[in-house]
């Protein structure tokens, strides 16, 4: 009955606020949900060692991010080219620069911070040529990244557990397939835990990836308790000497109270002996807009994220929201998805990402690409 009681009381409060407001002839100001403080990110336990340095050779070479996303760059305008050529920067060019960042989904407040910072730096240095301005912007963007370990962490004691979370359709299951192939290339023995017992055929999808990457899978029937699947996978991993359990979870909107509670439980189970939970990775789709920041905030509150996998960077979207997540919440972007094949997962490199946000190869003016027709 609690929900009913509480709901009525909330409505009374809000209802009366309407009238109070109406008297002052304004639109109602509604009580706001208090902003919760952001949970700290988990810092890696000192007993954990890094064994994923081979990740690099198994996967990408430098420049792969840019190569992987080369197609996407044609949609971007040539603001940088324009700036490079210009001898001084007028307001219109600054505005276009601002639009360029906004179009990457970086968000308004960070974009303004970057532009203001760059303007100040340029004013101070008194160098107003194009190159100096681009450097200033780059420098400001660099400041948004946290100084964090971006390699995936294994426990010193097996089995290591990685938990993969996110909203619906962002690429969790696919990323798990890719992670599994990465770990296998690293010589690890891997079990996938089919923790999505909700979506139709989710376990079949994961099984497809298990077969493709020669890893094992633990699955249950549709509707089963996801915690018990993860639990079973960890038990099996411990008794049969597996190195790594990667747990899939059902896509969930962060607004669904019950599902977020379920996730908290899932995290607790994943962190129980004999398992060692080393990564809780949020999968973020590069096409996501400003809601991504709210998602990350809610997920980190429920499950204490250790990193982000930014997927679908092979599309035309820039994924600026991931940088906003890193800057605002301190959760580092660890990997980048650039396609649908097993090998399309590469380590995240801030410098490359900055280039992606800024570099362009086509003529045109930012903002022209939309809305004027």
């Amino acid at each position: 009955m609690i929900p009913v009681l509480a709901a009525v009381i909330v409505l009374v409060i809000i209802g009366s606020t309407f009238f109070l407001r109406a008297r002052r002839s304004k639109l109602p100001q509604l009580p706001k949900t208090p902003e919760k403080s952001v949970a700290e990110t988990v810092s890696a336990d000192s007993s954990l060692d890094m064994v994923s340095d081979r990740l690099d050779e198994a996967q990408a070479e430098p420049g792969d991010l840019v190569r992987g996303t080369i197609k996407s760059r044609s949609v971007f305008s040539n603001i940088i080219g324009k700036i490079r050529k210009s001898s001084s920067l007028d307001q219109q060019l600054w505005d276009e620069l601002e639009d360029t960042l906004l179009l990457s989904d970086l968000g308004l407040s960070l974009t303004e911070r970057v532009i203001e910072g760059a303007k100040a730096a340029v004013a101070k240095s008194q160098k107003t040529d194009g190159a100096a301005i681009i450097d200033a912007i780059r420098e400001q963007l660099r400041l948004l990244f946290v100084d964090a370990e971006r390699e995936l962490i294994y426990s010193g004691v097996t089995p290591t557990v990685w938990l993969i979370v996110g909203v619906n359709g962002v690429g969790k299951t696919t990323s798990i397939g890719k992670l599994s192939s990465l770990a296998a290339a690293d010589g690890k023995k891997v079990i996938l835990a089919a923790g999505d017992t909700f979506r139709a055929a989710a376990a079949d999808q994961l099984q497809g990836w298990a077969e493709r990457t020669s890893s094992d899978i633990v699955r249950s029937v549709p509707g089963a308790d996801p915690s018990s699947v993860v639990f079973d996978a960890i038990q099996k991993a411990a008794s049969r000497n597996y190195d790594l359990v990667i747990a899939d979870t059902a896509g969930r909107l962060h607004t669904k109270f019950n599902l977020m509670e379920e996730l908290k439980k899932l995290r607790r189970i994943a962190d129980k002996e004999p398992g060692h939970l080393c990564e809780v990775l949020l999968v973020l789709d590069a096409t996501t807009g400003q809601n991504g920041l709210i998602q990350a905030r809610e997920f980190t509150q429920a499950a204490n994220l250790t990193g982000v996998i930014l997927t679908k960077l092979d599309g035309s979207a820039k994924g600026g929201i991931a940088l906003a997540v890193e800057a605002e919440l301190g959760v580092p972007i660890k990997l980048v998805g650039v396609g649908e094949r097993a090998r399309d997962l590469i380590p995240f490199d801030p410098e490359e990402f900055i280039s992606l946000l800024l570099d362009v190869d086509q003529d045109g003016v930012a903002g022209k690409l939309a809305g004027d027709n």
Partner: protein
Amino acid sequence: MFDSLTDRFDDIFSRLRKKGRLSEAEVDAVLREIRAALIEADVNVGVVRTLVERIRQETVGEDLQRSLSPSQHVIKAVNAELTKVLGGESLKITYASRPPTIVLMAGLQGVGKTTAAAKLALWFRHQGRSPLLVGADLQRPAAVEQLGVLAGQAGVDIFSLPGDPVTTAIAGVEEARRLGRDVVIVDTAGRLSIDEELMQEVEKISSSIQPNYTFLVVDAMVGQDAVNSAKSFNERLSLSGVILTKLDGDSRGGAALSVRHVVGKPIAFASTGEKLADFDIFYPDRMANRILGMGDVLSLIEQAERTLDKEVTEKGAKKLRGGKFDLEDFLEQMQQVKKMGPLKGVLSMLPGVPKEIRNADIDERELAKVEAIISSMTRKERANPEMIDGSRRLRIANGSGTSTAAVGTLLKQFKDMQKMMRSMGVGGPSPTKKAPNRANNKKKKRR
């Protein structure tokens, strides 16, 4: 997270009240806030520019000073503009004279095409049609299995062939014809709009089956890129409309506006939950409010004004603040609030409702039970629940058709609630937060 446009305007308009007239700079400030709100809602920057210009033209000429509430006035104008863009002509489904009516689903990866296809099939069934679903997503592992399970839930048959998507689509339409189905819905693999090979493939599917309707499925959470992909899909497939998914989240959904504006095709359906029945035709006015971060406040105010008795509501709030809210008051308030519609629906329209409550399982039957129990008490008992002993409890249980246990639970929970409200000082006027980072934005010059 997001300030509602109202909060942002208040500051500017308080200056108007003092001076009676907005200066050029202040008009700019208002428009800047509108721009900021739209960008935070993921409306494409280019589209924002066009809209803000239009709003300027519409509001500048008006004498804001004479309007009782300039802030409300401007918001209404913005709202009307957005509704106009979102609405326009809507999509009417007409069925092919020679069945089946062929529907093609397309979109980026992970937007919810497969679920939307099944939901659409169920929708057609509710229109008295008998659709066939065709699984032509042969790319993603287990996509056809997923469609199969969903088709089962929707009570619809499914057809698929391994191998080539184009062949599968053609064969699926043939099969629908053979079976005498009047609608056939073809689900396709998710693809990037810049993936030339896959875009050619979907183009080929389209030209082979000649769909009557082609829907682009768009995720409500998508950001600035929405227009790029929508444009490409529209060029290749000539869309009939858009299906907007994942509206049960809290994204503001500005992409709907951008896509509508840039592609010029109506938003036909909205998908609002994981259940197959959570699917409906699209309402532009609700979406406009959502984009502005106002929940459905505008219509809710009207509804509240129509249905709530002002005196009663204010009395209740006063008692709450004073910590004197008893079961009698609760009953009275509950009966009022009930008039506004299902509790869950009302709560979901309001911004600012704590999410624990917004997402709680609110069962309207519970509400009826609570009402029955309290109604079976005497006035005295409502004011003094302590006097309810075993025999009274039994009487109340019998009177309300519930059990003594239910009566006990209600009493205990209400008491807890009272305690909690007192300790939190609930009910006081809510402090209005001003976001600090906006303060310096206002000083800046933007177009």
